[in-house]
């Protein structure tokens, strides 16, 4: 597929038509430039901005006749086509395309200073025919050696030079071979090939229907940015760039997926992210060999440390501010084309139970809410199993009155507590899943049926006891307090084995379950970083962002373990107050 684009337009066209055989959405537009040279534009219908293409590429080229008199007047009767046509014939067609493509790539930024005088006119293409006879002769004597006056010696006009000279499109780059051309076309570029010139030019005129950024549905906040990532990679990188404007924010681009050729951006901040981490991430991404990446979830599963773990080892977020916060902590963000979910690595348990809003509200509130969250987080994991264990094995732990009332309500229930709990939990999960999948209008119906009909009827008919309904509902609410859906999922799932353990070994079973989870988390690493990171191995200053949410003027240190390259994120002693610089202790 690395066949170079030759100087022969017919050859190129037949090659590309072979590649795009049976692709009804690829448009081949043949036309003749003003000077009569054959040219070809091809693009994917619907991915390319056709109006812009017509106005900025086709129109100037077709009206290029006006240019012709300019060249002959400088002494060459044959005009521009001659040097250009002569050049490829002098050298083998394959060679020059490669050798020119590379150095030229660096040229565009430098060139505009020269061609600028001529660049603006094509902007108003109707005006060009009248104006252009003037400028080219005036320019040539000034910028180039006037005495030589021999265009055959000056570097041959290459496609990208042409683009820079006469086509007012900023996103233009040379394409040297078929593979380049195909890549550009597939991302919505239009590729221009001109007879007699090796290689072609791609114009980044992509435009397709896309969603405008709206509020992140899965991570809403009360205070904080309402902007979420979208499905368009360029918009997402722009959102990150708007948050972190320093050029130290680097974005490496990779292409993953044999068929989908999904663009993946590895974003990090130079000097904050560990070079070894970046290498590790890039290497793991490089190992992926799959036909298609349709969502960042594919990548997540293919780069994890422990693929069998129920816990997410990668933080996925829809929020540009959360991704930017990760970058500022020295983490690496992965943006995947086609999904609004960015991945941030390495992740730790602490980072998965934090919400972006924790950092926007006052720290007292955030701290209190964090503790509430931790409490409910434990409840979501343990409440039903503790209920089962206490009712089955440890009745003496309940105060007598409570025990009596529970016993009374369970009098008619035909099932043991274990079965009752499993039944209700599974029903609840089913209701929740149905609520997520169904259209919104039906969703309310499901909740009415689920809550009123099933819940009420089950209790009043004595199939389920009222305390169990309370326990299950509370567990459900508790599982909604976990801000990250993926982390909440792990705990929702682990609830079931623990209920079974509670039903067989009582509190001991629950403890064994907790121990197994702790051991598993202690074994788990995310890109080399221990999962329980600020807790174990302990890191005192990072714990200030786990047990409490310390105010910003105290969060001087970046939380990643080990020796961060740049451990301090702000200057210390910024405690605010009437005296400047927190002078008062």
């Amino acid at each position, binding site marked *: 597929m690395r066949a170079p684009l030759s100087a022969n337009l017919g050859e190129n066209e037949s090659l590309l038509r072979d590649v795009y055989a049976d692709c009804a959405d690829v448009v081949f537009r043949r036309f003749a430039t003003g000077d009569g040279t054959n040219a070809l534009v091809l693009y994917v219908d619907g991915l390319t901005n056709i109006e812009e293409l017509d106005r900025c590429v086709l129109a100037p080229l077709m009206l290029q006749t006006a240019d012709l008199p300019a060249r002959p007047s400088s002494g060459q009767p044959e005009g521009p086509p001659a040097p250009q046509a002569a050049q490829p014939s002098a050298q083998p067609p394959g060679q020059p395309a490669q050798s020119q493509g590379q150095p030229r790539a660096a040229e565009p930024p430098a060139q505009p200073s020269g061609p600028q005088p001529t660049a603006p006119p094509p902007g108003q293409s109707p005006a060009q025919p009248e104006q252009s006879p003037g400028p080219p002769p005036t320019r040539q004597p000034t910028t180039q050696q006037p005495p030589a006056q021999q265009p055959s010696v000056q570097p041959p006009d290459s496609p990208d030079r042409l683009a820079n000279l006469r086509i007012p499109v900023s996103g233009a780059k040379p394409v040297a071979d078929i593979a380049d051309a195909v890549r550009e076309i597939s991302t919505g570029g239009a590729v221009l090939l001109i007879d007699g010139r090796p290689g072609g030019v791609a114009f980044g005129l992509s435009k397709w229907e896309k969603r405008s950024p709206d509020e992140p549905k899965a991570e809403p906040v009360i205070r904080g940015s309402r902007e979420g990532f979208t499905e368009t990679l360029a918009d997402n990188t722009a959102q990150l760039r708007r948050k972190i404007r320093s050029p130290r924010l680097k974005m490496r681009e990779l292409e993953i997926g044999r068929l989908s050729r999904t663009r993946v951006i590895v974003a990090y901040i130079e000097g904050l992210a560990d070079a070894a981490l970046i290498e590790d991430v890039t290497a793991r991404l490089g190992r992926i060999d799959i036909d298609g990446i349709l969502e960042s979830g594919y990548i997540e599963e293919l780069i994890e440390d422990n693929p069998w773990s129920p816990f997410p080892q990668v933080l996925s977020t829809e929020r540009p501010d959360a991704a930017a916060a990760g970058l500022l902590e020295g983490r690496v963000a992965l943006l995947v084309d086609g999904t609004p979910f960015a991945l941030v690595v390495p992740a730790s348990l602490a980072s998965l139970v934090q919400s972006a809003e924790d950092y926007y509200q006052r720290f007292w509130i955030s701290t209190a809410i964090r503790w509430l969250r931790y409490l409910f987080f434990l409840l979501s994991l343990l409440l039903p199993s503790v209920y089962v264990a206490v009712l089955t*094995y*440890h009745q*003496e*732990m309940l*105060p007598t009155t409570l025990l009596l009332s529970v016993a009374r309500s369970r009098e008619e229930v035909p099932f043991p507590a274990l079965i009752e709990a499993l039944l209700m939990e599974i029903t609840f999960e089913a209701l929740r899943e149905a609520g997520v999948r169904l259209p919104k209008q039906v969703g309310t119906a499901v909740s009415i049926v689920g809550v009123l009909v099933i819940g009420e009827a089950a209790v009043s008919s004595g199939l389920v006891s009222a305390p169990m309904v309370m326990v299950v509902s509370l567990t459900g609410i508790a599982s909604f307090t976990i801000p990250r859906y993926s982390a909440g999922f792990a705990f929702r799932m682990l609830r079931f084995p623990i209920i079974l353990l509670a039903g067989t*070994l*009582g*509190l*001991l*079973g629950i*403890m*064994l379950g907790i*121990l*197994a989870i*702790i*051991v*598993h988390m*202690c*074994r788990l690493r995310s890109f080399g970083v*221990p999962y*329980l990171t600020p*807790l*174990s*191995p*302990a890191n005192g200053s990072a714990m200030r962002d786990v047990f409490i949410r310390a105010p910003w003027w105290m969060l001087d240190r970046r939380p990643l373990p080990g020796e961060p390259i740049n451990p301090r994120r702000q200057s210390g002693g910024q405690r605010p107050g009437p005296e400047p610089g927190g002078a008062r202790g």
Partner: protein
Amino acid sequence: MTRMPDNGKITPVQMMFLLHPTIVSTAVLLVPAMTERHAGRDMWLSPVWAMLSGFAVVLTAWALHRRFPDDTLIECAGRVLGRFAGKIIGAVYTLFFWHTSGMLVREYGEFVSGVFLMETPTPVIMGGMLVVAAYAVRGGLEVIARCAQIIIPFVAVLFLALVLLQTREFDADRLLPMFEYGILPSLKGSIVPQSWYTEFIAVSFFYPALTDRSKGLRWAAVTVLLVAVFLSLTNLAALLMFGELAGRLVYPVMSAARYIEIADFLEHLEAIVMAIWVFGTFIKICVFYHLLVQCAARTAGLSDWRPVVHPLGLLILVSGIWSASNLQELIRALGSSVVFELLFVQLGLPVLLLLAALVRGKKGSAAEAQ
């Protein structure tokens, strides 16, 4: 010597969290009653005397570590006494840790089945614990250390809360008369705790894995002190609560927890005792299991210890079932013959090894740091 696969690195603080439950978790349950039988009302002092054994073990292990910085006790023996004798010492330690971890698992099983799950067969209780422990042990020392760092602070807080909640029932008169028969009874009473303190020999396996070796001795010594504080506090609490009756109870701490009652709602906090016990014992079982695996693999000269983790776990279960026919027999053994076994293997042998190293002038190859 084949290089063992990396066990990971632990920090000195993590070493403390590993060692502390290794002594305390089982000592708080059985030892108060055993101490009382010898020391009577002075039982609170016995752990403080016994602490000296702890220091002796820690210092011996440190001296050996200074001579052989990268070696555990098993390799030290090989270097000092030669290959053959070293293997014998290794075999002794392997069998010893097999026996002690079996007893340990049995103590755990007896406690849980005796107090909480009376109808569940003990092997099931022991097996469940060993399965989880095997999972941790397979992760290496670093994983056990991280678990300890998560679990032990929580356990320590629960323990202190438990003692605090009992204060309402305390009666200071039960301490009097102090030293009625001199200090001899408290010294006698310290023999059983001493055998527990000698379990500090585990540091010999931890020193080489430390990230900051220079702080190893300091933190080990701090741990010995902390252990003394905890054990003394336990005995004191049992004494203040029950007086000399403590000696007749199997698990005084457990019985004391039954007295707790707050606001007519928090009562019967045995569950907390069980949490302390199960979590603390879990770390202890992991540590002993780890020592057994390391000793067995190093003595046998295996290139990797991971494959032997699960088979040895099964053997621990078997040894737990064999170690005694019932709880009374187990307690009797722990108070008599096992004391000498523990003292000899965990204190005597290392001291002899150190003396031999001194006499023969052996030093480790990597002893460039003095």
